[in-house]
């Protein structure tokens, strides 16, 4: 009994620790006094009105990049995952490990490598990657595609091959079988992979910091570079809005897929 009580108390403290920085953002965004002082002295909504337009354009960039990253990650991830789980060719396990290896590489390393690469690429072709939306999407595909592959591989592990055989037996062509049987059955893992790529793209700082810039600045990078120089209430208001949006997204995901399942694929 005492053991469970002690455990309860510990749990409470840990959860408080986990949620504190998220909750405080919302509280202080309404603080009329000095933004970093606690407790808040007065209530205000002025910070929300003071959010600079650059944050809105950064949000727009982030959403475009995340959407393209999610779609392309699945588009490249699905065939690769199918090939890796169904193919019987030499070096399959090695290719599997190689294609998933970007998840092991620190994002910062990928970021600076891509930055360096885009400079060389410019020297060679005079095509700009850095500072463009394409560059950002390319950068985010480095982790998006492996996430897509991994999610679909995990989903495919439970795939019942007899279902496809049944479809073929009933007269469906291989292409019909693919679209009407294979894809629908794998849909939950395809969706999970896409959502994962989307969320990670929205979250990323190191890669977008080095691949972006100018008109191609994502929201996290905009916040990052802002707080490097000054820390104002408008940033807190932006952060609070993100917390709100994340909460809605989270509840939706939990309803639709189940968070445990989504993150189970990540482990």
């Amino acid at each position, binding site marked *: 009994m005492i053991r469970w009580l002690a*455990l309860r108390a510990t749990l409470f403290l*840990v*959860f408080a*620790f*986990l949620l*504190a*920085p*998220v909750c*405080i*953002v919302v509280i202080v965004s309404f603080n009329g006094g*000095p933004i*970093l*002082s*606690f*407790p808040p002295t007065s209530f205000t909504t002025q910070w929300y009105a003071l959010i600079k337009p650059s944050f809105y354009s950064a949000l727009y960039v982030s959403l475009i990049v995340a959407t393209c990253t999610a779609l392309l990650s699945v588009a*490249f*991830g699905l*065939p*690769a995952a*199918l*090939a*890796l789980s*169904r*193919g*019987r*060719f030499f070096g399959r396990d090695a290719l599997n490990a*190689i294609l*998933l290896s*970007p*998840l*092991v*590489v*620190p*994002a*910062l*390393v*990928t970021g*600076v*490598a891509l930055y*360096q690469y885009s400079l060389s690429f410019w020297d060679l072709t005079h095509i700009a990657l850095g500072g463009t939306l394409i560059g950002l999407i390319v*950068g985010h*595909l*480095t982790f998006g595609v492996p996430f897509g592959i*991994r999610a679909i591989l995990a989903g495919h592990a439970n795939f019942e091959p007899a279902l496809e055989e049944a479809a073929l037996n009933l007269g469906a062509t291989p292409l019909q079988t693919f679209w009407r049987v294979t894809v629908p059955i794998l849909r939950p893992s395809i969706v999970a992979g896409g959502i994962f790529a989307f*969320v990670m793209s*929205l979250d990323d*700082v190191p890669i977008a910091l080095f691949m972006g810039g100018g008109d191609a600045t994502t929201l*996290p990078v905009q916040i*990052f570079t802002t*707080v490097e120089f000054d*820390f104002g209430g408008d*940033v*807190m208001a932006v*952060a609070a809005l993100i917390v709100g949006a*994340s909460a809605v997204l*989270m509840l939706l*995901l939990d309803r639709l897929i189940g*968070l*445990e399942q989504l*993150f189970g694929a990540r482990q």
Partner: protein
Amino acid sequence: MSTTDLERLPRPDRPRRHADPWLWILLPTLAVFGLIFAAPLADLILLSFHHMAGPAQVDAAFTLANYRAFVTDPFYLEMLLRTCGLGMLVTLGCLVVGYPVAYFLARTPSRWRGFALFLVISPLLVSAIVRNIGWFPLLSQSGAVNWLLLKLGLIAAPLSLINNFTGVVIGLIHALLPFMILTLTTVIQRIEGDLEEAAANLGAGPLQAFWRVLLPLSLPGVVSGLLLVFAMAISAYTTPAILGGNRVLVMATYIAQQFRSVLNYPAGGTAAALLLLFAIVLTVLALQVRPAGERTP
């Protein structure tokens, strides 16, 4: 793909064995991988074998001097040590804070389990940058934590908890705790609850049962989790950059500094190549010690 395509393929050694058509389907993804990931990394590694010719300029001559500096120059050694110390503190913190929670999640029949798990995972879905800036109103001189400690009379003057090493440790523990908890939960779940009951039935109290049964059995999984969290802690950039207030120089912040302001690309490239090496070694080690049946990267 038609049969004529197949016939044009180079014949493998073994007769009557065509290349698996799945290999062709894999090809576009492999090409993308090579173009946007392998080539840039190779480029970066090559970079680390050159000198800086001037700001943002790279000399053509091959050199090992960058790496030599890393093992001889006290500046770099101190930075490596600081990075390593940060990783160890964060990992230890995550273990101590995370184990009880993981035990609860793995064993409780409570209907609150789902909610608790939701709470553990939820910070992961809130942008890392938001969680980071959330620490400022909490940890700054006039922030909530100092206010509370002063009110309780536990301290006489505000503590510096942010824009320094302490802030980075706190922020990283927070960022990586969910991963640690999820890993440990899986590990403990895999140990049959029967074994703990058997230990109790044979007369072992909770502490003895933990020490003699739970801990030894969870050790491989725990070590694997520790290595992964350590790898993530030393590769993280956003948190040390923001919570360290540009004052905490670890590998990650050094790399970014070289590329963003100092413009010594080879020096940054060398540090990045080393960080890459550490991350790979740690991950491979983690996969090695991981119990069989859980070997997906």
